[in-house]
C-alpha cells in the first residue's frame, strides 16, 4: 500500500532551525546572513529553505528600500513570516518527527550574521 505523502515541506533539521529562528521573533524581518546566524547554519546555506517557504506562502520577502550608491552597499533582501506562515510553522515544528530539541546539544548556534563558518 502506497504511503500518503505529507502535504507540507520536508522538515529536515536545517529547515527546522530556520523556522525556529523565525518563530523566536515572528514579526522580525531578517536578511540571509542574519537568518543563518540565528539558525546556527553556515552562511550561504539557507537560500533553498527560504525559497521553499516563500513559494509556500509562509515567508514574504522584499528588497531593502535604500539607495545603494548613497549607502555604499548593495540592497539586502529581507524575509519575514506571514501571519499564516507563522501558524503553519508552529504546527509543522510540533509535528516534526526529529525535533530540533533532540539535537540541541550537538548543534551550536553560530554567533553574528556572518556565521562562524562564513
Amino acid at each position, binding site marked *: 500500500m502506497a504511503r500518503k505523502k505529507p502535504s507540507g515541506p520536508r522538515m529536515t533539521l536545517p529547515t527546522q532551525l530556520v523556522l525556529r529562528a523565525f518563530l523566536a521573533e515572528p514579526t522580525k524581518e531578517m536578511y540571509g546572513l542574519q537568518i543563518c546566524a540565528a539558525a546556527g547554519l553556515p*552562511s550561504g546555506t539557507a537560500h533553498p529553505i527560504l525559497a521553499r517557504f516563500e513559494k509556500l506562502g509562509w515567508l514574504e520577502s522584499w528588497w531593502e528600500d535604500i539607495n545603494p550608491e548613497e549607502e555604499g*552597499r548593495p540592497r539586502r533582501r529581507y524575509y519575514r513570516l506571514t501571519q499564516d506562515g507563522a501558524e503553519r510553522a508552529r504546527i509543522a515544528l510540533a509535528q516534526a518527527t526529529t525535533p530540533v530539541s533532540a539535537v540541541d546539544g550537538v548543534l551550536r548556534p553560530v554567533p*553574528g550574521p556572518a556565521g562562524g563558518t562564513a
Partner: protein
Amino acid sequence: MTIAQAMTTTSALLVFARGWVSARRRNAEGEREARVVGVLKLVWSRPDSTGRAHAHDALRELEGASVRQAARRLRRPASRSRSASGLTRIAARVLPASERDRYVQEYSAELHELAQTGVGRPRQVMYGIRVITRTVPLRFALRAPRRERAAP
C-alpha cells in the same frame, strides 16, 4: 685552520645566531601586537556581539599570517573576493532565468557584508562554494510550485 681561527669563526657564528634569534623574537612580538590591535579595532568598530564574533573569526584567520599580512589587515577592512563573486555568479546561472538577477544581488549583498565585517577572502570563497553546493536544491525549490499545481 688554526685553533685560534676556528674559535674566532665559531664565536662570530654564535653572535650572528644570537642576533638572528633576537630579531625573530622581535618580529614575533610585533606580529602578535599587530594581531591584537587588529582585533581591538574590529571590536571597537562594532561593539556588539556581532563585532565580537567577527573579531574572533579574524583572530582565528590571522593565526599563521605573516607580519605583512597582519599589517595589511590593519590598514583596510577585508576586500571582496573576486573568486567568491565569480562562484556566486556561476551558481546563479543554474537558476531559472527569472530569478537569476535577484539571487546575484542577494549573494552580492551578503558578500559585501562579509567583507565589511572583516571576513577574509578564503572564508568568502568558502561562502561561494557553499552557495554553489546549494544551487540545485534552490533551483528545485524555485520550480516547485509549478509541479505541485500539475499534481492531481
